[in-house]
């Protein structure tokens, strides 16, 4: 007997995940939980208190808010309640047998992922994305539909690749970076760099670890 599936998150993502899951497992009983955020961005998860984690599996479907931190936190919250969170690999994907996909990851219809890739947990890979062999996509990354990623690429944790991005072989995209400007990227992108169509120049976060040791005057 198939267990019940809880799909938890923001409305459009939840609707997409429900439709996708129905396609691959038509007999699955699915409960969608569409969360509201208060103005401190907190979620009300009280609906889950009555649900027995042993009898259900769960999937968090949420957008890239706060550089994917909100989806990450929501997943951590659900997991700590004891739910199993298998990935959602939509119909019509071609994921090579030697490629591993982590918990709560989403792989959209028509995506092609070649051999020996590692897709971490909580990753979102949009429909029709193409990923070359031996590529690593670290946890909580967000890849928009149709993005093309070469072989032996590393997309680091919480990174976001927007529409129209092509990443060539051997490139590394740093942690928390956003590349949201159509075009081909053949150079490493450091952590916390934001390349965004609305800005002419790259945006960087500069940080000095020792600075906090200064005291206030």
């Amino acid at each position, binding site marked *: 007997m198939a267990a019940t599936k809880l799909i938890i998150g923001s409305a459009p993502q939840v609707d997409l995940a429900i439709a996708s899951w129905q396609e691959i497992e038509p007999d699955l009983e699915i409960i969608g939980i569409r969360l509201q955020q208060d103005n401190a961005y907190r979620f009300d998860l009280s609906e889950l208190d009555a649900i027995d984690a042993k009898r259900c599996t769960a999937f968090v479907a949420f957008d890239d808010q706060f550089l994917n931190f909100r989806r990450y936190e929501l997943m951590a919250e659900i997991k700590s309640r004891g739910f199993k969170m298998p990935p959602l690999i939509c119909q019509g994907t071609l994921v090579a047998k030697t490629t591993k996909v982590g918990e709560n990851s989403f792989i959209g219809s028509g995506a092609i992922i070649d051999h020996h890739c590692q897709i971490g947990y909580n990753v979102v890979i949009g429909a029709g994305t193409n990923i070359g062999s031996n590529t690593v996509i670290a946890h909580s990354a967000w890849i928009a539909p149709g993005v093309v990623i070469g072989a032996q690429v590393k997309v680091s944790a919480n990174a976001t690749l927007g529409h129209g991005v092509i990443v060539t072989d051997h490139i590394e995209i740093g942690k928390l970076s956003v590349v949201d400007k159509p075009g081909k990227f053949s150079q490493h992108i450091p952590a916390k760099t934001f390349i965004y169509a609305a800005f*002419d120049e790259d945006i*960087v976060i*500069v*940080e*000095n670890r*020792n600075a906090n040791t200064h005291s206030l005057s």
Partner: protein
Amino acid sequence: MLSKLSQKHYIDPDIFAKEQKQIFSKLWIFAGLRTLLSEPDAFLTRTIGGIPILIQNFAGEIKAFENQCAHRQAPLQLEAYGQRKLACRYHGWSYTDDGHVKSIPHQEALYHFTADEKEKLCLRQFAIEIIGNLIFINIDADPLPIEEQFTDEFRQQLTTISGYFSSQVIHTSVPSQFNWKLNFENVLDYNHIPFVHPQTFKPLINKAAISSAPARKALPEKTLLSSLSYASTMEMQVKKWPWQASVEGFGEPDTFHTHFIYPNVNFISVGGLIFLIQQFDPISASLTDVRLSLMTARETNKIRALSAILWGYLKSEKRVLDEDRALLEGLQSNLYDNGKPSYHGAYEVQLQNVAEVYLDLMETQP
């Protein structure tokens, strides 16, 4: 009344070249944040008054040098921000912390410099003043005493507020097709806010910014350079951010702070929680890089999503800036040589003061 500046002042390349000499090479110019230079050999680079400059931490002391090798002009530091010893990548010369050449690889075999020659090879050093966490430099050989540009009171205000800066800063530069003076005038002109920013900025301000304008000033009174840089505050409904309990904010809540730092900086703070420094960096008569540095107040507890907060906030500031930019670029593109000067009302007294001091500075004989 008619502005003292003509349209030519905003478009003429000769006037621009003169400004680089008489203003940006004479006054104290904001150059960067002390918070980013805490570690030994941390540096930043930029161009001021047309001169490439590096500012670096030498064993705790912050110094400014010309960023050009004494050998064949290669830049000594390349990146905008970094951490590296002072040495040239072209032929490997290295420098001491007073800007003298320390070592020249293959000196005996290839260069044959005398001890005297070697002693003379050094980098031009610039005067530096650190006000709280704000670094100012002056590239004049005989720099203006800082108190002639910024009053004691204003320097004290800057020291206090900048002491609250977090050390994580998001930075970008927005190339804009207008003269730098237009942007400084624009930030002084509070009356544009409801018209140019009806959605983005106006709703944040509690009361209408329109109180009645000051009376026209008595004409013969001479405007002091130091009167152009000052702080002001305004009441504002500051949104409650989920992270604000994790930082130590500055000042009263629900306050919007503005600091006008002549000639080309506007430094604001929303509620003492978010700080934004905007600098209008002159590139040519009709091109300005608007440099944005944004940070939160210093963290008392680690904020995991700080990068996301900075990024989100920068995006919203950019929307406000783009509204100004669209307007100012349109204005600039319409200017012509013999066009009429602006016509100011009473509320624009500060624009007149700025013009008066500007013309004084431009006419001062070196």
